[in-house]
């Protein structure tokens, strides 16, 4: 077999059983890998009503057919579970080198289930798999545990996935890291891993990936690597990391100032990639086989936090506990907060989301120091944020409430609809630091429609509107029109989102980094098909590639439908659709804009063939995608969703 390793590793921590399951040709062709394999397992093995922290729940780690090869950026891993934050489908994707190592050890996927009696870690040494005691590692930061495991196993070169203290404490938005700093940030699987008493998974792989056509593979990889060199997005990412977006976000008014009360601020450049590079950048880092190297390593040189070091931050890691909570004057406070969320192992976006919601509740008088235990949650209060992050991770005091995520915290505090107005979430998950009133209406549409809740800057990644203008003719080639390359327009956006969601889903099945395709448009779908076929020796077509993404997308959407989540929940926070964008700087391009979601939804549904009333995937489409069993599952639920009793329910999470 070429490309795939051909087997799934299943570890039951309750019984200690370790099994290896073959993945058939038909299965691999249907789901491709990574995200596809994981979504299939979660749909079939984790029922809609199961508590995500129940030992029976699964957490999956998936890699793809090109993982570990010389194609651009093939170290990615998707981590998938039923999300404890949203209660719905949840996955997240990380870089690093662990994914390639897993493939070299001979696996395409790991499924973990059950709960160990005490903290453990899994040690995979090619075909030898052990469950080992991790009691001495519990409570450690990933950077500490990583070193301890390497010393214990006597190998500095192994790669390890780890959770931090937040995961151990089942914080609902705890995340997972590999190689210490590469995070799968969203949807809270770190808490699910912690609920299983699993600290991490160490891997050593001494095998290789069999390539069907090595000459064709080297040709396409060499060609793409050369093509990356002048790519404008690649250059920005390499030079300044994803922080290269800060000044763009500020100009176009999508910079998340104070929980999106504003979209631009005169001090934004304090935290720009340019400033970071000049002041605190220690070195650049890249994931496995990556031609871009967007990773940063930060060393704070001055002030209160001088001497602190960490891997990162990304744009989405820095803005939530920076401008989103009103911190912007001293960028070292922002870098420090990013370091804290990393060390404790929490999703920076939800951490900033829940703190900024709490600050706005405090500002509006919905809560006082009585609820916060004396913490004065004023905008920009860096001292309070520094205290709160560890309190959330360890579930102490007011931190225990915030550890539930923004929407649940609002309910725990009894704040009613007013409280939820300030939780900037969709389907229970905080939106990333990108205001659709400026970033783009395509992005906004994908926030409403994302199959892992209120993300999703990575689900459809509508870069055709963000960076499409840098690639003349590109929007025409795909969409037939250059006008959609303007962010603040509805023109061409429903089709753009449909197309990019499918493209991105298959990219996540291949497990290559979304920055290396359809962000840097140097690599387009036909190039991906070319290296996929060179690796596997198969005859995938561009249609089949996109169709696999469509299948995965529909399966994930169906997971939500089983939770009774559909058309009524296809929303973005009201702030974006009702409050005109205020002016923050005089060169801002989107003053007065509101986000017109409803103008695009109907058309988007038509592309997807979602049923108009329920928003559930239509029966014809499911059958076309070979998902007859899903159609059968959804059949009795369609009328239930439309019943009066369901209509009355307010569903902020599941």
């Amino acid at each position: 077999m070429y490309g795939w390793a051909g087997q799934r590793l299943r570890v039951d921590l309750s019984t200690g059983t370790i099994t290896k399951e073959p993945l058939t040709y038909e299965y691999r062709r249907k789901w491709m890998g990574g995200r596809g394999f994981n979504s299939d397992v979660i749909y079939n093995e984790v029922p809609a009503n199961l508590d995500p922290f129940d030992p029976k729940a699964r957490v999956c780690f998936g890699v793809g057919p090109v993982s570990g090869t010389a194609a651009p950026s093939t170290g990615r891993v998707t981590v998938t579970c039923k999300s404890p934050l949203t209660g719905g489908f949840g996955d997240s994707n990380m870089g690093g080198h662990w994914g390639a190592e897993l493939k070299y050890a001979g696996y395409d996927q790991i499924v973990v289930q059950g709960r160990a009696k005490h903290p453990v870690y899994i040690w995979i040494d090619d075909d030898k798999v052990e469950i080992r005691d991790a009691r001495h590692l519990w409570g450690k930061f990933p950077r500490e545990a990583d070193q301890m495991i390497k010393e214990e196993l006597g190998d500095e070169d192994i790669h390890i996935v780890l959770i931090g203290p937040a995961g151990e404490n089942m914080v609902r938005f705890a995340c997972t890291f590999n190689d210490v700093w590469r995070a799968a940030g969203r949807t809270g699987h770190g808490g699910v891993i912690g609920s299983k008493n699993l600290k991490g998974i160490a891997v050593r792989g001494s095998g290789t990936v069999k390539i069907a056509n090595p000459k064709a593979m080297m040709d396409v990889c060499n060609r793409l690597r050369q093509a990356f060199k002048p790519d404008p997005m690649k250059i920005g990412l390499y030079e300044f990391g994803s922080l290269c977006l800060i000044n763009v976000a500020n100009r176009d008014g999508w910079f998340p100032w104070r929980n999106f009360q504003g979209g631009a601020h005169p001090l934004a450049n304090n935290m720009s990639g340019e400033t970071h590079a000049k002041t605190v950048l220690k070195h650049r880092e890249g994931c496995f086989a990556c031609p871009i190297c967007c990773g940063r390593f930060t060393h704070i040189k001055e002030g209160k936090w001088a001497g602190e070091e960490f891997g990162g931050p990304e744009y989405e890691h820095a803005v939530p506990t920076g401008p989103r909570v009103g911190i912007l004057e001293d960028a070292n406070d922002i870098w420090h907060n990013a370091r804290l969320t990393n060390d404790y192992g929490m999703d920076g976006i939800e951490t900033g989301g829940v703190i900024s919601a709490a600050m706005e509740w405090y500002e509006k008088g919905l809560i006082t120091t009585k609820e916060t235990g004396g913490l004065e949650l004023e905008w920009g209060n860096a001292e309070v944020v520094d205290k709160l992050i560890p309190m959330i991770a360890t579930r102490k005091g007011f931190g225990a409430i915030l550890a539930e995520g923004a929407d649940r915290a609002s309910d725990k505090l009894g704040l009613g609809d007013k409280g939820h107005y300030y939780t900037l979430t969709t389907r229970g998950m905080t939106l990333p630091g990108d205001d659709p009133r400026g970033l783009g209406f395509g992005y906004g549409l994908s926030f409403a429609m994302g199959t892992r809740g209120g993300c999703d800057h990575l689900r459809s990644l509508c870069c055709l509107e963000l960076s499409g203008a840098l690639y003349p003719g590109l929007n025409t080639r795909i969409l037939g029109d250059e006008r959609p390359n303007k962010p603040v327009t509805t023109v061409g956006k429903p089709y753009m989102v449909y197309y990019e969601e499918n493209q991105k889903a298959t990219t996540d099945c291949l497990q290559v980094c979304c920055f290396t395709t359809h962000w840097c448009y140097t690599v387009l779908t036909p190039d991906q098909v070319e290296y996929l076929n060179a690796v596997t020796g198969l005859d995938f077509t561009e249609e089949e590639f996109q169709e696999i993404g469509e299948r995965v997308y529909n399966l994930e959407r169906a997971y939500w439908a089983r939770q009774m989540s559909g058309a009524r929940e296809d929303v973005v926070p009201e702030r974006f659709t009702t409050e005109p964008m205020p002016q923050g700087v005089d060169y801002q391009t989107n003053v007065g804009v509101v986000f017109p979601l409803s103008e695009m939804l109907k058309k988007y549904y038509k592309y997807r063939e979602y049923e108009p009333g329920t928003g559930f995937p239509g029966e014809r489409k499911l059958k076309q995608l070979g998902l007859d069993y899903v159609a059968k599952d959804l059949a009795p639920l369609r009328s239930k969703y439309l019943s009066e009793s369901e209509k009355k329910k307010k569903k902020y999470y599941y």
Partner: protein
Amino acid sequence: MAIMTKAQAKNFAEMDDFMLELCDFLKSKSVIDATTHRSILLKGFSRMVECLQEKKVISAREAKEAMDKGFTSLVYSLAK
């Protein structure tokens, strides 16, 4: 080859998001079948132009113009 009127072309040209409607129209006129309709939606505009040229509905020059200028140019070619 004219497969739509000028008025229809104008109507398409004024659409904010034309892809689905134009595919449906081409199918209703039996210019494309269901498989091609699906293939176009999955692959995008370039596939639409390619298949219209293959079927000789548009010339090579019109196909090139469509790829340069976009769908407005294409729909007016379809009305010629």
